[in-house]
């Protein structure tokens, strides 16, 4: 390192800035942006990655028209929307609730927070595998516990097309509620005490304090948490791939799972690239609008 240090000694700050940033930039361009442009280019062709000798033809917007006109794709989008909306609503409520409770400083607070957070650090794919065991209709612990409280008889969370969409919502909620909780907790801890003291002086009720002080202060944090979760769950692949792999039939076939099937099982590279571009634009568009709304709420 020493010789390298000496060699650069005369460099100006500007040169150093570029030398420091360049490797990161080049890698991102090569492994992220180039593939994206490649995908966009392929999305206008009839390319099949498994048929190498075949002539690749430019087909214009055909792939896009095909996707947007396909009823099946809208079904997948609905399944994805069901998953994203329910996970966000449930995780927002439970996460905020837990954060409010944790904010009352009791003994062992830090330890409990760390333990509660554990599920979200685990590998989603591995989590998916072990939940298939918990959901097993014959020997699963989940089914046993549910039947302990109310006897439903034998039911199959993963095998039934009405229950399967909820099975992924439950696991995602188990795993990611701590995420919302942690961020909301940071929001709650950032509220200065004097706001409550002033409210007490004005004889505001506890409920009024909650509505006028606590909620508005924590809202930007909650919205940020939901932005992260929303993007992640829109892209959701690993957990569901191992838990239900899109089944039964296509009851839990989220956008990314469908994309994987089209791209790596049917090898429709051109078509799936177009779908990938549509998904990316959707995430980007939603994300941008959301951030604008979020900033407006923050400024208010």
């Amino acid at each position, binding site marked *: 390192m020493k010789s390298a240090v000496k060699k650069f000694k005369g460099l100006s700050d500007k040169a150093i*800035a570029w030398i420091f940033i360049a490797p990161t930039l080049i890698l991102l361009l090569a492994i992220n942006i180039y593939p994206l442009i490649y995908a966009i280019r392929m999305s206008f062709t009839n390319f099949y990655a498994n048929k190498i000798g075949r002539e690749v033809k430019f087909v214009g917007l055909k792939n896009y028209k095909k996707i947007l006109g396909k009823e099946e794709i809208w079904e997948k989008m609905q399944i994805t929307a069901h998953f994203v909306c329910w996970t966000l609503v449930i995780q927002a409520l439970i996460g905020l609730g837990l954060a409010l409770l944790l904010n009352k400083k009791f003994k062992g607070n830090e330890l*409990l927070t760390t333990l509660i957070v554990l*599920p979200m*650090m685990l590998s989603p794919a*591995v989590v998916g595998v072990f939940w298939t065991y918990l959901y097993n209709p014959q020997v699963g612990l989940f089914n046993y516990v549910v039947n302990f409280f109310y006897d439903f008889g034998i039911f199959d969370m993963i095998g039934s097309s009405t229950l399967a969409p909820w099975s992924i919502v439950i696991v995602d909620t188990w795993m990611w509620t701590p995420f919302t909780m942690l*961020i909301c907790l940071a929001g709650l801890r950032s509220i200065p005490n004097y706001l409550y003291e002033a409210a007490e002086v004005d004889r505001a009720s506890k409920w009024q304090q909650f509505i006028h002080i606590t909620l508005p202060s924590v809202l930007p944090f909650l919205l940020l948490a939901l932005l992260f979760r929303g993007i992640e769950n829109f*892209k959701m*692949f*690993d957990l569901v791939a191992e838990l239900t792999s899109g089944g039964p039939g296509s009851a839990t076939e989220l956008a990314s799972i469908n994309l994987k099937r089209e791209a790596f099982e049917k090898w429709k590279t051109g078509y799936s690239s177009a779908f990938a571009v549509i998904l990316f634009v959707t995430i980007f568009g939603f994300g941008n609008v959301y951030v604008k709304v979020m900033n407006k709420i923050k400024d208010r």
Partner: protein
Amino acid sequence: MMDTSRSPSEASGFSRKLAATIIIVYMVVTLIPISWMVATSFKSVDSAISYPPEVFFEPSLEGYVNLFTNRSRQPKDYLDSLPPPDTWYEELVRSREMVITGPSKFLPRYSNSLIIGFGATFFSVFLGSLAAYALSRFKVPLKDDLLFFILSTRMFPPIAVAVPIFIMYRKLGLGDTHVGMIILYTVVNLSLSVWLLKGFMDEIPREYEEAAMIDGYSRMQAFFKVVLPQATTGIAATAIFCMIFSWNEYAFAVLLTQFNAQTAPPFIPTIIGEGGLDWPAIGAGTTLFLIPVMIFTVVLRKHLLRGITFGAVRK
């Protein structure tokens, strides 16, 4: 609900106790699935598929033996003709009327996870700290756009770029190789490492380097000898986050690796016993795979919030 608006300092004894009780109940419920998996790893195959589920059971290492070995079932007279088993695990396998035919693929997959994880972590933290320092200290044109661009690379669904990367890697001979996966995970981690490290470096006062530079250090020397040592905690926290990500990653691993560089997450679901999944062995694999992450989480607890929000929320 009304009580929730109380500021923490004046929460009454009762409401504090109630809150603690609810939190403890939640904690217990949320840890049941993980504890159950660990418990399953110490069950015998029969006990793992008994109903009602056994909370108390005779512990067995069958799951771990099955995880690390390949076995085949043999007729009784053949087993009787064999010399007595030398080791406890052979004895265990014999008692199930099987013989060990060799080591399983778990160890190579686990070490692949380690090699790729450490490699990617090293490069993403190294390159990330250089970029973060430049973005933290110097006037860079379009800095905000650059930072947003770096972050936006995280918004691609991995499957969307997986196809072109797959084709690219096939052409370059990087498919199913350790190098290919290290490069890929380095890039995926870069956005996190740049954002986190920039936050940490922003917190180091400029005066330190300026003082060092007045003492005759060049900018480079000041960076390596003053700033980096100051940022050790931040670098360590960032490294652990990068490690956890690479360790847990599944989508790219399952699509781009198969025989040579496959990591543990795509491998664990494929552990099959006779007539279905071998739950104790899967439990054992899961337990061994999750333990490092749980330890890291405890180590990281003070920086957790920062890491999961890319530095957007700091405590």
